[in-house]
């Protein structure tokens, strides 16, 4: 049978299309990737901060800076501690000198030294990257240099980041900054290099009062997951739809 021109063209087109489509549809996976794709992730890191326990000593900030090689005297930090002083007249005074690194040794807040009888409540709030389930920083990175792991942690590829600062602008929590030495975006990783080896993050290990804990929210037997699922916990800035994974016990409405 004489092959018709239509048939011939059809075959050629189909062949060309499949040639183009093959590398798009069939993705060759690294062995690690294949393994990760097969098993459903049973791990999702989550952080628990008990603000009732925090004493504002700043050990977490010190430990973090040393562990992650963030210049010790720079004002930026992967984690920081905020002090809140709510006065009886409703005014809220907040500070975080040197990111809370050296603790809060002066009673002066925002240039004021409120009298004890004027203070309604005062407390400390540790902050770090929320490793959001829906991270805006990952969404806006123009080159894909920042990415979310299956375990939920958001990382930055220091060899890929172009330093545009879009991720810094898009984080509602102020968790990101430029690493002053590497000139790339920098952020808390829950000390991913430690937790993947079964260790605790530096800040968790350094906290003398157990105000900071990390756990696997997908494991019902995990003590941290138990607290998060059974206690009344809050997250920061829920309204941005980022689904943050740092949970707070005793979060006050004054906290920003």
């Amino acid at each position, binding site marked *: 049978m004489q092959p018709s021109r239509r048939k011939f063209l059809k075959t050629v087109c189909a062949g060309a299309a499949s040639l183009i489509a093959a590398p798009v549809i069939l993705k060759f996976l690294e062995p690690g990737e294949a393994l990760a794709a097969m098993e459903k992730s049973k791990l999702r890191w989550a952080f628990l901060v008990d603000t009732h326990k925090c004493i504002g000593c700043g050990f977490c900030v010190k430990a973090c800076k040393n562990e992650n090689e963030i210049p010790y005297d720079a*004002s930026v930090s992967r984690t920081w501690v905020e002090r809140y002083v709510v006065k009886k007249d409703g005014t809220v005074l907040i500070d975080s000198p040197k990111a809370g690194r050296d603790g809060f040794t002066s009673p002066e807040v925002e240039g004021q030294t409120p009298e004890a009888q004027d203070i309604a409540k005062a407390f400390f709030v540790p902050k770090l990257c929320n490793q959001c389930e829906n991270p*805006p920083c990952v969404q806006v990175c123009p080159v894909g240099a920042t990415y979310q792991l299956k375990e939920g942690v958001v990382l930055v590829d220091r060899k890929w980041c*172009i330093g545009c600062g879009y991720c810094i602008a898009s984080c509602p929590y102020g968790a990101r900054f430029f690493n002053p*030495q590497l000139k790339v975006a920098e952020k808390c990783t829950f000390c991913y290099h430690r937790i993947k080896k079964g260790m605790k993050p530096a800040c968790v290990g350094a906290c003398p009062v157990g105000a900071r804990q990390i756990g696997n929210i997908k494991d019902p037997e995990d003590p941290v997951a138990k607290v998060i699922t059974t206690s009344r916990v809050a997250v920061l800035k829920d309204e941005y739809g980022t689904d943050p994974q740092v949970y707070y016990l005793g979060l006050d409405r004054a906290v920003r």
Partner: protein
Amino acid sequence: MTPDPVMIHGMEWTVKELFVYPNESINWGIMIVMYPYMTGLVAGAFVLSALYHVAGKTELKKIAKFALLFSMALLLVAPMPLLLHLQQPLRCEEVFFTPHFTSAIAAFGMIFFIYFIIVASEIWFIHRKFFVAQSMARQGAQGVFGRVAWLFYTVLTLGAFNVDEKSLHDDEKAVVFLAGLGIPVACFLHGYAGFIFGSVKANALWMTPLMPVIFIVSAIVSGIALCILTYSIISLWRSFRAGTKTTLEIEEVSKAAKYLLTFLILAITLELLDMVFRGYTAMKSWAILRSVIFEKDIINIFVLQYVVGNLVPLILLLIPRPTIRRILIAVAMILFGVFMMRWNVVIGGQAFSLSFAGFMHYHLPIIPHNLETYKEGLFGALTIASLPFIFFWIFNKIIPVLDKD
């Protein structure tokens, strides 16, 4: 505040007030003000030229030719401020090679190149006859310079030497098509610059769906204004130097100014609508936005942007019997006003802390003491602002669009 012992990007020109998160600083400085300003000028200049080619506004013929070539000069400069503000400028090509398409910035490479191709081909179709004539005239030219010039124009013809009536007519059709195609692409180029800001949900001042529209309209305003200003000044200067009466006609300038006026009114309306809406809905962020808009930045926003940059030029353009001088003063003020609008968006958006409990003040680095304070300071901005004129000067040597036909 004592300066940081370790140089952290942004901290150098940021002064904090009340409570600001430790990691916050004004990361996006003058270069990110210049970036939407320059892309806006590109889009505006192109729209002005397209008004002649597509809408057939013949009174704009001379200025349209100029505007298109000037748009090209501006287009080459538009990505430079982005490049200068990168902390890792040597990795900039990753935006083109590994774009991450959920990011608004990732689309930049594509839109920019599509637009570049449209503008370049439109210029080529308009001036092909000129290239052919130049190539023919220089055939067999003596001397190195003459031969190089012949080769240059011959290459520019791309081998299309046919200049009979039909092929020239086809050229014209292509120009109309490209100009028509270019308008939406130009709007997209700039609308997406607005999207870069408008989609940042963390930033209370930036996040509004009106942002891309406001950016497009004010872009057209600034682009037309710059074309009128540059075109008029060059025309006046040429006739002054030649000692002849100026060929610049009031009809031509005031026609272009009329289009400018329409877009200006639209821009002001949209910006005011945005502000009124924010005040009326008074969301959580309004308290801090109000203190930025009505206290911290009141001079920048109301005096410099709205009064000097919008209201006064609006009145100057509305007064009957326009004169060239009055129009030129008005367009210069409008250019300044659009610049202040970009400033108030970019810097104003970072004037308050994400905590809504503190403020940041921007101090533009003036005298540079290192590379960073040069490229993200006043002199970096002046370099960027002067480059389009240098590029245009070079282009005009190749294609003299300012000479009479």
